[in-house]
């Protein structure tokens, strides 16, 4: 089937089988391998992308379902102005180790901050509870999202120095 989508602002067309998963379309046909596959049961969130601005697990959606829609992946975060605030937050706060979960985590955070620009720690933790990270223990991911929130709101940036007791 012929489908047409907008991927990170660029019109794309593809001929897909009806059974093709969106994540496979993105990774294999469009070579955007920033979107990862971490499970086969919609449990890990590594494949999280935005469909018309709403976060979704692309391993659980058929490519044909997004015909005519706008898809944003991690590759679209970087712009001519530089890193997206969420990317800067992850970088400054050491919020990634192996990086496997990071693209999905950031895409989820983008939507979270869109809907709730100043989330509490609890709201952040529940907000990313569909995304697993095996490496970081989440502390620094929470800090990264708080940092991005401040940056987007134009508020004072929190310190990125590690805090020790």
């Amino acid at each position, binding site marked *: 089937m012929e489908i047409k989508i907008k991927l990170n602002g660029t019109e794309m067309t593809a001929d897909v089988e009806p059974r093709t998963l969106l994540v496979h379309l993105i990774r294999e046909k469009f070579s955007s391998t920033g979107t990862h596959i971490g499970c086969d049961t919609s449990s890990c969130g590594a494949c999280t992308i935005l469909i018309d601005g709403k976060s979704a697990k692309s391993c659980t959606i058929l490519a044909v379902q997004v015909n005519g829609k706008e898809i944003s992946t991690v590759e679209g975060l970087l712009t001519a102005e530089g890193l997206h605030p969420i990317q800067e937050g992850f970088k400054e706060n050491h919020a990634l180790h192996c990086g496997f979960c990071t693209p999905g985590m950031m895409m989820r955070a983008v939507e979270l901050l869109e809907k709730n620009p100043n989330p509490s720690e609890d709201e952040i933790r529940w907000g990313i509870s569909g995304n697993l990270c095996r*490496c970081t*223990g989440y502390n620094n991911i929470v800090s990264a999202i708080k940092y991005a929130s401040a940056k987007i709101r134009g508020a004072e940036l929190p310190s990125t120095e590690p805090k020790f*007791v």
Partner: protein
Amino acid sequence: MAGHAGQKHKIRVVSPDIGGGFGGKVPIYPGYVIAIAVSFLTGVPIKWVEDRSENLQADSFARDYHIKAEIAATKEGKIQATRFKVLADHGYTDASANPSKFPTGLFSIGTGSYDYDTAYMEADAVYTNKPPGGVAYRCSFRVTEAVHAIETVVDTLALKIGKDPAQLRFENFIKKDQFPWKSPTGWEYDSGDYKAGLEKAMKAIDYDGLREEQVEKRKKGELMGIGISTFTEIVGAGPSKDFDILGIKMFDSAEIRVHPTGKAIARFGTKSQGQGHETTYAQIIAEELGIPAENIQVEEGDTDTAPYGLGTYASRSTPTAGAAAAMAARKLRDKAKKIAAYLLEVSEDDLEWEPGKFSVKGAPEKSKTIQELVFAAYTNHPQGMEAGFEATHYYDPPNLTFPNGAYICVVDIDSDTFEINVRRFVAIDDCGNIINPMIVQGQVHGGLTQGIAPAMYEELLYDDDGNILNGTLMDYLVPTAVESPSWETGHTITPSPHHPIGAKGVGESPTVGAPPAIANAICDALKPYGITHMNIPITPFKIFKTLQEKGLLDTDLKI
């Protein structure tokens, strides 16, 4: 395969970013071998992809150790001896990378951080029809299991004799001036200051205040528990006197080449899977050589270019390859000194080093920067000296490093549903000199979440016919940001006396140290029921079942 046929030099393994490791990537899986064989047979490249459900069902597993731990002590609580008997389920084949002559990890630091001299340890392993087992999951050679045994049995002792578990530990710790300390099983702990670590953790969490709060809560029948773990780890395999893999000594390697531009490439036999080697190794070399870290490119993971090495696992990269980096850099500094003496026309003894340059003692205006000296190594070096600025070091550690930590956990348990809430968790680690505090802290955070996992959540369940019951991430609960508490971490610093820069490994300490702190906190909370021990993972349902089976559900909780 070609390695076995003596053709190893013809094989190139390139390992780019591969995701986290944690021990699961140590074994050789049948899929690897089959993919290679099929590629040979068909003459085309073969890709083998395992999906997550296959991974949970058929990949290696860890921690299926059934340990009976006994502790002997005086009435006052002075530990006299321990005895561990272990039955280890290793699945259908042993999946761990075992050094040829290193016995099970239980025989190393199983006696813990305590001063006594009698121990008996016995391990039996069985084959079962489960996947390959016995992986040292984020710990060096299964010490997580050993630490869990010693740290929980010490708490059981405290409960039985009615002594505060912190006090019991203080009275039994190996003291700072007893290091290097020969353990009952013959290992030499390099350094530690256990008392300082526990004191710091107690202060950070307000231990006395928590105990007072607990007394008040118990009067009201509320379940609150405080758990401690003061563990010793053993990492940095390994000294060739103790370790080898089929005869190959367990060194690791570094190779540094500084170009005439003063910028360097450094290659290693290890491979980062998110541990931040690129940053840490560059910092070590920068510190030794005075070249800015951003001018040092770190490269790993290509067998065509890397020096021969044994890889990254068991928290060994800083103890071995990190040491090799420092030693190789020191070789280069020695060469730079010879060149400086030649250029400044003085003897080497008249030169002084400060990071980044050599100058003449008493005449600091006569100096040469490292960049000038490197350039001279290619353009104007003394007659008879080999040109170039390049050094390799294979580091065979004289001993292992023994990082340690003091962890304290506070839990609240709902007396109706038995839901367990980890209210606070303070982790004080001592990994000797710290190269990069942010990276060490990141490793500790991640390890703590992997420590809460076996304590409260993760367990592969099988029915009586051997079918896996939770073979997807839907029902095998990897902790999310919600299950993970906000970790509070800190450190004490007791340098390793034998490591070139006084550092110890740290990546696995938190995974090793956290489970007993959590289990001890839960048992402490359940004290009103008279519970002194529970096997992990401890879930609300397991608490309910245990109490139900013992007929304790209607216990009056007010004490």
